[in-house]
């Protein structure tokens, strides 16, 4: 399983998201190759179709398809948690669904 983990250093949420991804992979006993890549410029954000930090793709599919087409930019990405609230990291449920 190939996973892309794209982040921008200017948003503090990526360590939490990376940890959560690791936990979900471990709980499911999944063996994945994670490519972690820092996005450093607007040009890179556009090239990589990076709608904010962090962006996680499993086998090329964004873990949050609804937000995948957002404007490429160096900013924190908005995720919706199951309760309807706003979060700067994907929910455990989103990651589990993407990995299933």
């Amino acid at each position, binding site marked *: 399983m190939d996973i892309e983990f794209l982040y921008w250093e*200017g*948003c*503090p*949420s990526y360590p939490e998201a990376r940890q959560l991804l690791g936990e979900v992979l471990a709980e499911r006993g999944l063996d994945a190759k994670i490519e972690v890549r820092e996005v450093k410029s*607007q040009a890179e954000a556009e090239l990589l179709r990076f709608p904010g930090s962090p962006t996680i793709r499993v086998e090329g599919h964004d873990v949050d398809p609804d937000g995948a087409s957002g404007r490429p*930019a160096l*900013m*924190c*990405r*908005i*995720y919706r948690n199951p309760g309807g*609230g*706003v*979060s*700067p990291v994907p929910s455990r449920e989103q990651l589990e669904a993407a990995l299933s």
Partner: protein
Amino acid sequence: MTIALATQAPPFDLPGIDGQQHSLDDYADVPALAVVWSCNHCPYVQAWESRMIELQREYGDRGFRLVAVNSNDADNYPEDSFEAMKARAQQQGFNFDYLYDEDQSVVQAYGAERTPEVFLFDSERRLVYHGAIDDSREESEVTERYLRDAIEAVLAGDEPPVSETAPVGCSVKRKA
């Protein structure tokens, strides 16, 4: 550099989403004034926004005023333009002033780095609390209500129990 505790509030005179200019002097009679760096696009701000509204609602009658300031570069972050601020405030029902620091001179004077980031001033406009609103972006997980406790203390004429915390949020988007 961020202003230090006990520093006098740097002056400002900024346009608000209500079509009026708002200066520091306009709040001269306010016993507790929170200047909060904010914006539209940041998920951390959005997560805390309802708590900002709640604090203004709960303490407004006792003289507390919360003033949100957006200093982000709208050329590169159009989600934070003045027009978008007006739309966001209406959509979310903001009950506090929301000001636009287009030339970033005010954020430069205060030294804010994050959104949201709180600067609470007492009646003499002395900085008595700086940092986060509380200790979790998830409201259900909050255990320490820094700003609320600081407001209570200031309104009672006391020093806040905690005067400085690390703000957690998006970076202020400065112009190149």
